[in-house]
């Protein structure tokens, strides 16, 4: 029950004074649950977890840890798919879960001020009666928090048209890694000076801890049409995606699910997906009522030209809701097919989607793994989901190798190793393949301005300086 080295009784007592003793968690049984997030290939329990209740408490906690030289890691709902919140063994988790209040909804100025622990979907839920919503809608939006969304610059199905998190954050209050509190951005669009809000968004907690966020509210579209197109080949589905984008149509969302995913979500939600389909596309167009039918028909024509065997339109709002829930909860539904999975998050140019998917299937065969695909096709943002059993060390090794090959292929095709989940701890070793040493040095220089001692979320995004190619970096095996 004794805290680990670095975090002595004196520091713990100070933390307890700040947040209250019941909000300082130490000891094996209390910290064990913080040893991983949505990414479970690596696990490490923190030395302690602290649950502050206000921005002032966060700042005080950070000051104490900074003074004691103890690293710390911010955590929201712990839904990260790249291990962004996995701590080094001597670190303290700063959980923002208690800071979950929507502070202000300002419809006349179309913005909301929220605490970082507010769940993404809550903002739209509260704004809906007035006809507004918060646009970025990551698949985990029913549970993931805005603080984490800022950290990873989260995307989602509807970002194809509406943009990602950074396009919807007007300002943040940030506790710097030394405990100073700064306000970046604000209600005014396009402030003079550097775009520090843009810098912080997607920084994965390496520049400080966001304690207040001003988000943009957008008007709900007047209408929408949601199509489900069923295909007998994945190739036809991906060609349809390229076709729609080529025609200059920007759907609100353009999503693909392959057969494995269809099987899982159908078992979970019973929407009525055809179980023998190779792939389905969910295509949504929205905007002013006038012209929507024409847009939907244009998409449908492209589907038919690419041999879609069936086209359905969501007839009711309830049907549309169930269709989207099936899509958004698809990751978790795959838990019905295997004990564990790892979700990859590569990006390729849209025109190379058919090639990338074929390659993914080949990699699956090569390593003897089942790989499911559910992704934001319109963005070229793929999510191959590698199914495995964490009790089988050989399979775990193959999953890591296959993931690595998939991400390398994304880089080779001119894409990226992450579209929205962030680099986290998982893809650190790929950064050197994407960026030159000079690129990385420039980014590390920026980090050093905010986080000179590297105490705030260490070990994330960047390979440790001087470390050589870490492609086959040994990973701690998951406990059997």
């Amino acid at each position, binding site marked *: *029950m004794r805290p680990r080295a670095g975090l002595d009784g004196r520091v*713990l007592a100070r933390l*307890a004074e700040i947040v209250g*003793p*019941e909000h*300082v*968690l*130490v*000891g*094996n*049984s*209390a910290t*064990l*649950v*913080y040893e*991983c*997030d*949505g990414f*479970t290939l690596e696990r490490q329990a923190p030395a302690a*977890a602290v*649950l502050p209740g206000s921005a002032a408490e966060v700042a005080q906690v950070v000051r104490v840890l900074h003074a004691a030289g103890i690293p710390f890691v911010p955590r929201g*709902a*712990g*839904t990260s798919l790249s291990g962004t919140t996995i701590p080094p063994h001597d670190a303290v988790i700063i*959980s923002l*879960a*208690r800071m*979950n209040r929507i502070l202000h909804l300002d419809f006349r100025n179309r913005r909301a001020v929220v605490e970082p*622990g507010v*769940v993404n*979907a809550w903002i739209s839920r509260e704004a809906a009666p007035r006809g507004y919503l918060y646009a970025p809608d990551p698949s*985990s939006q*029913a*549970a*993931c928090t805005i603080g984490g969304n800022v950290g990873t610059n989260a995307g989602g199905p509807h970002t194809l048209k509406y943009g990602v998190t950074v396009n919807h954050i007007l300002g943040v209050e940030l506790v710097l890694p030394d405990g100073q509190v700064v306000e970046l951005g604000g209600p005014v669009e396009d402030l003079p000076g550097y775009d520090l809000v843009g810098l912080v968004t997607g920084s994965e907690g390496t520049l400080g801890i966001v304690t207040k966020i001003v988000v943009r509210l957008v008007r709900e579209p007047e209408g929408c049409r949601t199509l489900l197109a069923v295909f007998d080949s994945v190739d036809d589905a991906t060609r349809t995606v390229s076709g729609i984008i080529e025609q200059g149509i920007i759907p609100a969302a353009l999503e693909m699910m392959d057969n494995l995913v269809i099987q899982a*979500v159908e*078992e*979970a*939600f019973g929407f009525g997906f055809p179980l023998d389909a190779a792939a389905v596309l969910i295509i949504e167009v929205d905007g002013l009522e006038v012209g929507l039918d024409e847009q939907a028909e244009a998409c449908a024509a492209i589907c038919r030209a690419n041999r879609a065997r069936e086209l359905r339109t969501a007839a009711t709002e309830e049907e549309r809701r169930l269709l989207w829930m099936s899509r958004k*909860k*698809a*990751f*978790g*539904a*795959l*838990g*019905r097919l295997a*004990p*564990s*999975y790892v979700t990859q998050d590569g990006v390729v140019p849209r025109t190379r989607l058919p090639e990338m998917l074929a390659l993914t299937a080949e990699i699956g065969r090569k390593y003897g793994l089942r790989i499911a695909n559910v992704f934001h096709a319109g963005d070229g943002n793929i999510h191959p989901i590698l199914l495995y059993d964490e009790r089988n060390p050989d399979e775990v090794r193959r999953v890591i190798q296959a993931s690595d090959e998939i991400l390398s292929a994304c880089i080779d095709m001119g894409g990226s190793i992450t579209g929205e989940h962030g680099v986290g701890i998982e893809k650190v070793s790929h950064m050197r393949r994407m960026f030159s040493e000079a690129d990385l040095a420039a980014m590390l220089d920026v980090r050093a301005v905010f986080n000179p001692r590297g105490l705030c979320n260490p070990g994330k995004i960047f390979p440790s300086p001087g470390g050589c190619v870490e492609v086959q970096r040994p990973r701690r095996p998951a*406990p059997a």
Partner: protein
Amino acid sequence: MAGGKAAQTVPQAAIPMDQLLRCVHCGLCTSACPTYLELGNEADSPRGRLYLMRAVAEGRLEWTADVVGHLDLCLECRACETACPAGVPYGQLLEAARADIARTYRRPWRERLLLALLRDMLFPYPGRLAAALRPVRSLRGALKRLAGLLPGDVRRMLALLPPGAPSACPPLPSVIPAQGLRRYRVALLTGCVAQVLFPEVNWATARVLAANGCEVVVPARQGCCGALHLHSGAREAARAFARRNVAAFDLDDVDAVITNAAGCGSTLKEYGHLLQDDAAASQAARFAGKVRDVAEFLAGIGIVPPAQPVHRVVAYHDACHLAHGQGIRSEPRQLLRAIPGLRLVELPGADHCCGSAGLYNILQPAMAARLLEKKIAAIASTGADTVATGNPGCLMQIAKGLRERGLAVDVRHPVELLAEAYGFSRAGDLSTGDDSSTRGARAGA
């Protein structure tokens, strides 16, 4: 801060590992969990609790006071099961873990005493409960003055008791004939606590069923459903109650077994699982297949349109074990909407637990009070004059919250409102007994 006592070792197979492994740690359950939303501690979330169970099953942790505390704090509202895309049978896993705790972990004497008194000796037996309540009710005034001297647990139980005299409904007869043409023959489960505290709900259920062409039989040998036992780790006792009920109902004779208590219904529907390795397994599965909540059954057969206007503004609260346990959400609302004159308003967070949760509001009073406060605030925000909900625990808990806040809002089971709409007034028509008091703040505590 954490601290813990040594605990005993746990047999490896106590919690089914294959079911635990269905959890892929996605975290989508966290925002559905009332205790996580209150405390923000991962160990008080469904994902965290599953992680703890697995750690114990794998020998990484033992059942210490800390670990048991996180599982005790779970309401078993099963909102996480609604949220879970992977289909983790959380309720069953929690019940297995609690049974394991009951076998291997020694609880403090106060908890053991409360469980022995309430769960094992009193609540399952309507006769004993009624006998115990008679002096309490007549001495209520005196007890209230003595409140300061009573132990907290006793005070909390007294606060839950509906005010006024118990309704003077006589026991249900063994058969209530259908009105008009008989369309169905159904058996009614009368419950244990509910039968004593809310006999008028059973009468309303029987009357409404009869008004819809159902002959209602009330099997004499039935007993407690065992939910309280199952949820608190007394698995063997729960199985004994299940066996008794399976034997008490003549399944060939009825189209359905009807319950008006969400908590009972959800347990009755799981009898097949509970007795899967028992001699009565196939009968239990058949029994479970015939169980219907009264709202589910009525919506399924299509009700005779009620004619009597009921001028109320009603907020419907989803009992956890109806919405999350049985997936019954639209049916009760549909029935309420069929009542002329009644205006149904949306209750924000309607399917969030009210904190009642079986024995929870007695064993975990602090968390129960926090959840109740939220529920009452949500009710107040709707402007409704009536709350409708299909579970006796919720009826008691919400009525208590409203009384304490001094809000004049009536609390009713949906079938009571339907009974009103069919012209059975709250008075004599229900049971041809005399008037009974109302449960909301109106009666004054």
